């Protein structure tokens, strides 16, 4: 009985931890299979020629996330042809804040002209598995054998308003390094933005 309790406690602790700890560079990226706004499931294995991915946790409602939309569309355009397509995931619980339901996502993607999948994380399991903390929160993945490794996690750049010509483009720098068969110089930054809205327990 005591052992079961202890095991349950450990399971609980790790369960709770998974929501707060962001996966570090070098870790194997969890498989993703989620429903896209067109109703079809999207997974990493749907892209056999991909050398890696840009996984972007974004939403409809956060001003930081909105500020980056054009840069996210540009990232997808630039890096899809180089083998790093972008997949966006909405990490927010639709009930917790409002404006991030599956229907809202469909309308939003259309209005903003998203050119990439925009996936609905029903139950927030993928958000928890990656430890996404904010919107936007970026993960750069590279293909190693049959799996994907996290190369970079954090912000797109260090300039949310987008008006600083001297901005450091962390996400681009990281992909460029991987394309050069190098490790990114900066592999972790703070994902500055709005906190992920977790389901209220």
């Amino acid at each position, binding site marked *: 009985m005591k052992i079961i309790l202890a095991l349950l406690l450990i399971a609980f602790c790790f369960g709770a931890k998974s929501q707060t700890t962001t996966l570090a560079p070098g870790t194997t990226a969890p498989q993703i299979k989620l429903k896209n706004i067109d109703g079809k499931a999207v997974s990493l294995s749907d892209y056999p020629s991909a050398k890696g991915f840009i996984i972007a946790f974004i939403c409809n409602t956060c001003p930081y996330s909105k500020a980056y939309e054009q840069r996210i569309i540009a990232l997808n355009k630039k890096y899809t042809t180089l083998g790093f397509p972008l997949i966006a995931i909405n990490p927010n619980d639709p009930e917790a804040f409002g404006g991030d339901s599956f229907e809202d996502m469909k309308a939003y993607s259309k209005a903003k002209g998203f050119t990439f999948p925009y996936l609905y994380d029903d139950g927030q399991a993928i958000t928890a598995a990656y430890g996404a903390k904010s919107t936007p929160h970026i993960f750069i993945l590279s293909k190693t054998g049959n799996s994907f490794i996290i190369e970079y996690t954090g912000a797109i750049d260090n300039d949310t308003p987008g008006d600083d010509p001297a901005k450091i483009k962390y996400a681009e720098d990281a992909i460029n390094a991987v394309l050069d068969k190098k490790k990114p110089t900066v592999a972790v930054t703070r994902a*500055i933005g709005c906190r992920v809205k977790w389901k209220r327990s």
Partner: protein
Amino acid sequence: MKITTILLLFCITSHLEAQRIQPITIDELNERTHNGPDTTYIINFWATWCKPCVKELPNFLSFDSAYIGGKVKVLLVSVDFSTEVNRKLIPFIKKLNFKKETYIIADKNQQEYIVKVDTAWSGAIPATLFIKGNKRKLVEQSLTYDELLQYYKNIQ
């Protein structure tokens, strides 16, 4: 006539006084809070678009030495985008009639200034920094008036 003009000018300037918003870097903010080791500085980071921030603002606006019985300075630092200052921030400050020192963050490099505030800060708001002498405490959550008072007492 002269008196009317002076009175009018006085009215205008004192009115502006309540709403003045100045750009500040974190280095300047750290300078500012070095003055007076007997003063507790409470620095609230917020933005007009952040719902929980707006909700807790009245607690900061009413937090005053006169009621606390100690020396306290509340500084409100907005992280609104510079493009939103005229359109959103100034009208908002006017509406709520801010009487506290009000700033807008002037640092460009977000990754850098966040660490300068506190290495434990994720950068999300609301966040409140309590400073008394060499003691610093960052609280990354919404605060009720009672919680604010408790953190103030804890750092004494």
